[in-house]
Every structure is written in structure tokens, then in C-alpha cells.
């Protein structure tokens, strides 16, 4: 049965530890069962949540202000015929340009270009000091199939990065 109203599926605001990711994914798995969506959509949304949370977890550790370290806001909404994932975390000013450039490149390549890009990146991937392989944003885009959106907010000399990912829902 398809849903007709928009609603919030899950939300988290707070410090992000690795165990928190497990808890959020547990909530996701329990909640998603009630929505009767296809296994494909369920798995793709799960994959995007993992990559988003792990990206935030890894890069958030860089913040000098300990209150900001590890702080994340995540929301998964049902919006008409799509899921909408919104995730935001603090980001260092000098990381913004590269991140935006990566997302813009992915959006410009489009869906058909993502598989060749993935193959190219994985062949030369090295695990960074932060623990990532640099493939995360491509994986998010592949699982979404829709353009990625982002916002950068500046508050009192600190910067907040917000990523918005849509996933078409199949039943």
C-alpha cells in the first residue's frame, strides 16, 4: 500500500559514535518494515545512510572545538514518492571547496557515468588516514540515482555542511 502523506521516518541529533550508527541503523530496519517498500529501495536507502553517517563520523573528528566534534543531525523523511535523507555536520573551511567540487563532478557526470567513475576510483583507491576510500559520495549517488543537493551555512566563523539525498521509492 503506498503512503499518501509526507512524514518523518527517523531523526537523530547529537554526538555520533560508531555504536550510534548501529543504533540508528537498527531503528531504520525496524521502521522500514512497516512501510512495505521493495527490498531494493530498502537496501539502497540503508547503503546511503551508512555512507552518510560514516562520512560524518570520520570527518567530524577533525573539528577542534570538542563540542562540535562528532555532532551530526540526520533526518529521513518520506516525501511524496521519495525518501529524503538530510544530514549535516560541522566542516572545516578548507575542506569545503574539495567537497563541493566532488559533488558537482558527480552531479555533472550523471547516473550513466557513475559506474565508470566507480571503477576508475576503486582501482586506485587508498584508505585515507580518516579511514575512508574516497568512494563514499559516488556510492551515495549510485544508490540514489538522483542529483545530490547540498548547503553550506556559516555561523560564528564555523561552517556546517548539509547533504540532501533523494531515493525513489519502489513498492
Amino acid at each position, binding site marked *: 500500500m503506498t503512503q499518501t502523506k509526507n512524514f518523518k521516518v527517523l531523526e537523530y541529533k547529537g554526538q555520533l559514535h560508531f555504536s550510534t550508527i548501529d543504533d540508528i541503523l537498527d531503528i531504520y530496519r525496524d521502521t522500514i518494515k512497516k512501510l512495505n517498500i521493495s527490498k531494493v529501495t530498502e537496501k539502497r536507502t540503508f*547503503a546511503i545512510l551508512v555512507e552518510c553517517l560514516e562520512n560524518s563520523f570520520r570527518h567530524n573528528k577533525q573539528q577542534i572545538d570538542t563540542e562540535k566534534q562528532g555532532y551530526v543531525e540526520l533526518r529521513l523523511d518520506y516525501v511524496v514518492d521519495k525518501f529524503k535523507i538530510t544530514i549535516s555536520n560541522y566542516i572545516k573551511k578548507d575542506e569545503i571547496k574539495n567537497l563541493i567540487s566532488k559533488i558537482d563532478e558527480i552531479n555533472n557526470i550523471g547516473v550513466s557515468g557513475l559506474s565508470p567513475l566507480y571503477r576508475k576510483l*576503486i582501482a586506485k583507491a587508498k584508505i585515507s588516514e580518516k579511514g575512508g576510500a574516497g568512494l*563514499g559520495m559516488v556510492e551515495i549517488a549510485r544508490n540514489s540515482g538522483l542529483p545530490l543537493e547540498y548547503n553550506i551555512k556559516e555561523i560564528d566563523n564555523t561552517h556546517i555542511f548539509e547533504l540532501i539525498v533523494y531515493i525513489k521509492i519502489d513498492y
Partner: protein
Amino acid sequence: MEILLIEETIATPKVIFNYAARQFEISGCSRPEDVRNFYKPIIDWLTNFRDSVSQTEINAFSESPMVFNFKFDYFNSSSAKFILDILVLINQIHSAGINTRIDWFYEENDEDMKEVGEELSEVVDFPFEYIEIKK
């Protein structure tokens, strides 16, 4: 070769590499907190095996191949890099003379998992067998 056995957790797959039992399998979900340290023993096991291949091992698998089973429910992008490294080592073991096969399992209708297997197969330049797990 020593037996490598790693039990499954909520974020890491089960790994069993048992030469005597001819069992080589990785299964479950892969999103380790420390991906490098998780996959290191697997990489080391395969590297040691590759470096110690002799006519004895080649003969042992001449009639029936050394089959590596990959049965992932899910793996994150960091794991993908190490899975590729494992596949490269298996290809090297094959090049060393061992009759080798890679079986890539995917759940019924999970075309995404099948597709990522096809991509990895292409990057490594080694053919996989694709096996659908019916529910």
C-alpha cells in the same frame, strides 16, 4: 596453512579460510569501524598462500578448483577497496598455477549486488560465477 576464522558481528562479516576443509568464504555485512585492521588477517593469509604455492598445492586443486565464496548482504565503500585487494590476490594465486574459481552470491532480485560483482570482476579481470540465493 593456519585456519583463519573470524566470527560475524553486526558490522563485520564471517570469514573462514580453511585449507584442509577446502573452505574459503566471506559472508554477511561489512562496514567495520577499522576496515584496515579487519581485513589485514585476510590479506595476510592470501599473501602467505600466494607466496608459498608449490606443485603440492597446484596438484591438490587440479581436479576440483579452489573456490572462494563471496556472500555479502552489504559492504560499504571502504570495504570495497579491501574486497578488491582480496580479489587481486586470488587472481595472483590463479596466475601462480592454482585452479581457482570465484563464486559471487546475491540475494534473489538483488541486482545491485550482482552488478557490483560484475564491476569488481571487470576491474580485476577475472571471471566470476554468479549465484542467486533463492528465498
